[in-house]
């Protein structure tokens, strides 16, 4: 026998309590916010006014924006930043592993390296590399022998100066990343018969990346900017030196500095977007669902619009 189920339920008592309509209340007025906004806008207007009235020949900026020399300098800025960062990354991993090793010699040497390069201004380091020929007229590596002035070009000085300095910072970042990985991961890997090296490469480093990538992106943005020190310290023809040269020749000194500022902002903005995707890649497995990419977010927003239109 089947009992008929009453699916509608009793209809006698309406739910008690306040009616379920949207509350319309007079919001609190935030007069302080209005005041603050007016003050800030006022100050901003003063700033804009000052620059508008300054003796700046603004058309010079677009005129030279895509100048060959500028673009070449831009390319060199990116090149030196990427290469120095690569040196920093590889050497940084090596130093971090040395620092964490049980061997007291390697770990102290790594400590000493970080202590030295982190403790001295990178500008001074660049000057020393560039002027190395003053104390070592020849370079002799056994398989390679040359006059130091031929070897230590502005490019080499900038590369070594920036790269070796970066390695010190990167090693600390990598070390923090490696130490952030749970020890149970190493144990599980060892228990499966994986050696120390394999465990580091396959299990520990990929997980450390999640901790390593964000500060590394930061370091790279810093590198893009710090590379400008190579202009005066090592006479390397990157973006700043290119703009300065044009500025000196054309008399538009500050205009060209503004141009450099804009290009630096473009560079750092582009690479921040790249960093976002990289972080997303290494978030695999740590989040239940990955955050949407900016492009995916735009698409869902658009879909939301069309839905609303359809209803």
């Amino acid at each position, binding site marked *: 026998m089947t009992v008929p189920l009453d699916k509608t339920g009793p209809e006698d008592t309406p739910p008690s309590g306040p009616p379920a309509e949207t509350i319309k209340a007079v919001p609190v007025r935030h007069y302080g916010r209005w005041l603050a906004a007016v003050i800030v806008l006022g100050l901003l207007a003063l700033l804009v006014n000052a620059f508008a009235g300054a003796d700046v020949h603004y058309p010079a900026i677009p005129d030279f924006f895509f100048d060959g020399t500028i673009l070449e300098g831009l390319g060199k800025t990116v090149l030196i930043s990427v290469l120095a960062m690569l040196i920093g990354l590889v050497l940084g991993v090596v130093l971090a592993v040395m620092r964490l090793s049980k061997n007291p010699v390697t770990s102290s040497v790594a400590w000493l390296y970080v202590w030295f390069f982190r403790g001295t201004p990178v500008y001074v380091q660049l000057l020393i590399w560039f002027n190395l020929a003053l104390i070592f007229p020849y370079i002799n590596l056994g398989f390679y022998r040359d006059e130091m002035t031929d070897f230590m070009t502005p490019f080499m000085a900038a590369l070594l100066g920036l790269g070796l300095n970066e390695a010190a910072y990167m090693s600390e970042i990598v070390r923090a990343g490696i130490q952030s990985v*749970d020890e*149970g*991961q190493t*144990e*599980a*890997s*060892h*228990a*499966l*018969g*994986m*050696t*120390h090296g*394999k465990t580091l490469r*396959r*299990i520990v480093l*990929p*997980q450390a990346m999640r901790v390593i990538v964000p500060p590394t992106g930061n370091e790279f943005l810093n590198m893009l900017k710090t590379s400008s020190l190579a202009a005066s310290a090592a006479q390397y023809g990157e973006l700043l030196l290119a703009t300065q040269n044009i500025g000196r020749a054309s008399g538009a000194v500050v205009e060209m500095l503004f141009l450099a500022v804009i290009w630096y902002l473009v560079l750092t903005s582009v690479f921040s977007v790249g960093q976002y995707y990289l972080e997303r890649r*290494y978030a*695999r*497995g*740590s*989040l*239940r669902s990955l955050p949407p990419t900016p492009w995916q977010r735009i698409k869902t927003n658009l879909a939301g619009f069309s839905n609303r239109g359809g209803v």
Partner: protein
Amino acid sequence: MTAMVKSEGVHKSFGAAHVLKGIDLEVAPREVFCLVGPSGSGKSTFLRCINHLEKINAGRLYVDGDLVGYRQRGDKLYELKDSEVAAKRRDIGMVFQRFNLFPHMTALENVMEAPMQVKREARAVARARAERLLDRVGLGDKVGNYPAQLSGGQQQRVAIARALAMEPKLMLFDEPTSALDPELVGEVLDVMRGLAEEGMTMIVVTHEMGFAREVGDSIVFMDDGVVVESGHPREVLTNPRHERTKSFLSKVL
């Protein structure tokens, strides 16, 4: 027949803490060997000594007739190299209390990792076995999930499949159900029971007395770094001879 695991007077200290104070025991092949006792009694430490995750300070420990962690020539002991220790561990599977799955890999990749990296197995072979093993632990539909997307019980079953992928001759379980919600314990114990029925040699550190009674062939009660009592589970669990065993069992049963 050689014992699968043989322990002779094993001692282990962490600094001033003397955790194992002379452990003597033998585990026969195909045996399900349960280690029980209060926390801090040294049972997990002893388990970790068997695959040399911990170095013992005194005594001798043998797995399948081979000394663990050392090579003996005459009277002298030589420490094994990292690669030699790793090679010995291939034959010993281990399952941890906290699962320790690799979070950056899917369930399938977790199970494929060791055969491919350690045994240099071809991808297709490793993949086929991994799929079969995950299917066997009831997770055939979860191969593509990351550990964070699985429940505790599912994660632990993946961990068992991961250990089995190396085709070990001995499985170590370190409180495999202690980190699980009560309703998820059963699914993991079922997998372990199946494994026992197939004749796998298992050493299980556990608080699941029901499992020990039903599946275990021997049981050892440890307290304060020594073996207090050992025997057949039904015997020890129903008629404990020692006071310490009695008082412990009265609290957990």
